[in-house]
């Protein structure tokens, strides 16, 4: 038989593709259905947050952080206020710290829930998405009640939080937790127990611990390789050291581990919330912070454990009320870097499964 002439096909995926989770564009070279090269092209959602911050006072920067990883805005809030407070040595009231932890962990749960739904949607199952949204809606309602917004909360301030919990709010969380556990069990049974799902995620898109560290991965993409690294434990901030919780880790660093860690982390987040609402002290929620915040000249870095990984804020100050330069370490952006090497020589059917499992949010990638 004569040799068939074949050539590589250049396929442009995105920025308007149903499952690139926003406006990611990936240019892939296909040899049949095998990906030979994949190049992410980013910047379609770039708003220049870092540059804009140079013209803003520190309190004014907070709403811009809401719009980075817009599905876990509370954690982003925490990142910026934590960085400024560390730089200025501001003490904040106990109650505010507890509230930050509670809303942060609720928001982390919401973000992970969204991941589970969107990931299953990527893999062709539509129903989980809607069930997940039903559960997430309860969390969004809770956060709405305390902050007045459903998605971009702008809740935390340097020196505390804006509002105290409204009456009956903790009772509502207590009601929510058993409901969440029930739904959690449902997801675990129906999704993790699904043979077709397992065949699409087990052993696919795996990488080793060393590779993960070399790429600077953090959060679940790093923990899925078995490396136990969570800033809430390893470089504890806020009041996380007072709670008893586990850091679940995976073993193979494959899609399955990354998916399952999201589930397990939700459970741990709920554990933290449970403990926090039981032990929250009374008191003010806003401490004594100067009206105009001036960070002493110097360079500062502080990070929190965001929903996607280490969310760090690096501030260079020249002593004015605005940062001279600000750099945000966006975990989605860093985690995205492993995509080209991960997609190489994979089947195109696994493309979405791998891309989805890294769990990027384009608002954070492009900042």
């Amino acid at each position, binding site marked *: 038989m004569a040799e068939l002439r074949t050539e590589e*096909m250049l*396929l442009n995926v995105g920025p308007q*593709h*149903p*499952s690139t989770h926003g406006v990611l564009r990936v240019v892939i070279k296909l040899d049949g*259905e095998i990906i030979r090269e994949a190049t992410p092209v980013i910047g379609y959602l770039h708003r220049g947050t870092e540059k804009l911050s140079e013209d803003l006072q520190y309190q004014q920067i907070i709403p811009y952080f809401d719009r980075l990883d817009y599905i876990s805005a509370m954690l982003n809030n925490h990142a910026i206020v934590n960085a400024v407070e560390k730089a200025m040595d501001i003490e904040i009231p106990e109650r505010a710290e507890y509230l930050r932890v509670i809303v942060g962990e609720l928001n982390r749960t919401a973000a992970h829930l969204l991941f589970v739904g969107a990931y*299953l*949607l*990527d*893999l*062709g*199952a*539509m*129903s989980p998405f*809607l*069930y997940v949204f*039903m559960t997430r809606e309860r969390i969004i309602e809770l956060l709405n009640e305390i902050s007045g917004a459903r998605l971009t909360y702008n809740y935390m301030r340097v020196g505390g939080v804006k509002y105290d919990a409204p009456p009956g709010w903790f009772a509502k969380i207590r009601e929510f937790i058993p409901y969440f556990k029930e739904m959690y069990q449902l997801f675990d049974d129906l999704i993790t127990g*699904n043979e*077709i*799902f397992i*065949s*699409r995620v087990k052993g696919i898109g795996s990488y080793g611990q060393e590779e993960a560290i070399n790429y600077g991965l953090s959060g679940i993409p790093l923990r899925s390789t078995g490396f136990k690294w969570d800033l809430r434990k390893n470089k504890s901030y806020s009041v996380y050291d007072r709670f008893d919780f586990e850091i679940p880790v995976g073993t193979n660093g494959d899609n399955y581990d990354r998916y399952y860690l999201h589930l397990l982390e939700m459970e741990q987040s709920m554990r933290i919330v449970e403990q926090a609402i039981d032990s929250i002290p009374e008191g003010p929620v806003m401490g004594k912070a100067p009206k105009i915040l001036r960070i002493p000249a110097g360079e500062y870095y502080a990070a929190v454990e965001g929903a996607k990984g280490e969310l760090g804020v690096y501030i260079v100050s020249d002593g004015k009320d605005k940062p001279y330069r600000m750099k945000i370490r966006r975990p989605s952006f860093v985690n995205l870097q492993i995509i080209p090497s991960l997609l190489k020589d994979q*089947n*195109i*059917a*696994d*493309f*979405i499964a791998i891309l989805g499992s890294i769990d990027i949010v384009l608002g954070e990638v492009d900042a």
Partner: protein
Amino acid sequence: MFEWLNQPFTPMTVLGMVIGGVIVLSVILLVVAYSIYAQRKILAAMHLRIGPNRVGPFGLFQSFADILKLLLKEDIVPAKADKAMFLIGPMITYVPSFMVLAVIPYTATHLFTAELNVGVLYYIALSSISVIGVVLGAWASNNKYSIIGGLRSAAQLISYEIPLALSILGVILMAGSMNIVEIVEAQKNMWFIVPQIIGFSVFIIAAMAELSRVPFDLPEAESELVAGYSTEYSGFRFAFYMLAEYVYITAMGGLAAALYLGGWEGPLLPGWAWYGIKAGLFIFLTFWLQGTFPRIRNTLLMTFSWKVLIPISILNIILTAIIKIAVA
């Protein structure tokens, strides 16, 4: 029973045939329109949603509104498409989907049903023509997603036609006929689902793959291939692809009811009602699976057909033959 087919060609008999054909077509279109509606409502219920509820009471006219909208839309042909093939692709898929209905026996009286003595073969042969329209349309679109979708579709439909045909072979062995009406009549005492349970399982799985339904909806995997082979299609050409898909679901439901569930047989209710219930069960199954499963991996898809389904269906044929000889 088919006297009207043997009548001489006079204007009256031709008129009669045309009217008969139009009646069958409209009934099928009605069934298809409401199976789309049913799909949306059932899926909505499974998704904790409400589903269509704007057009008419409980959204009952939603499908008609959708079809009308698609018919009225501009017929866009991409600039770099192969125009002739692009235009003809949906027709090639659509026409056989209606032609297979000719051998589906709705009632014991066989109104408007051709009692072909090779009915099953006719069904399988015609339904495999449709894949040509899919590949043609995909190729002519000059769109990379379409090509991947079309080739996947071709690979999948060809791979799953074999287990489908082999599983039906067990039924043909049992009934001793390829005539669907005779197959139904052979089930007077016992539905073939009982002795042919292995064949039935293979049939259901292969049928889902043939229809490109979840979990075998790879050809139009919207999260990967946007819309697969129909990415570039709009307006009534897209509607033809969609209609063909749903007509096939209805037809496959009819085939399943005739081959395994005793066709129109059943107490109390008239034959067509029983037929509708049995075919409806199959159609409901497709919607149920859609609400339940994620999409299967495409490498697994091929492995599953060639290494699992085909051996099982061959085993089923051998078992059926042995049992038949032993009983006789």
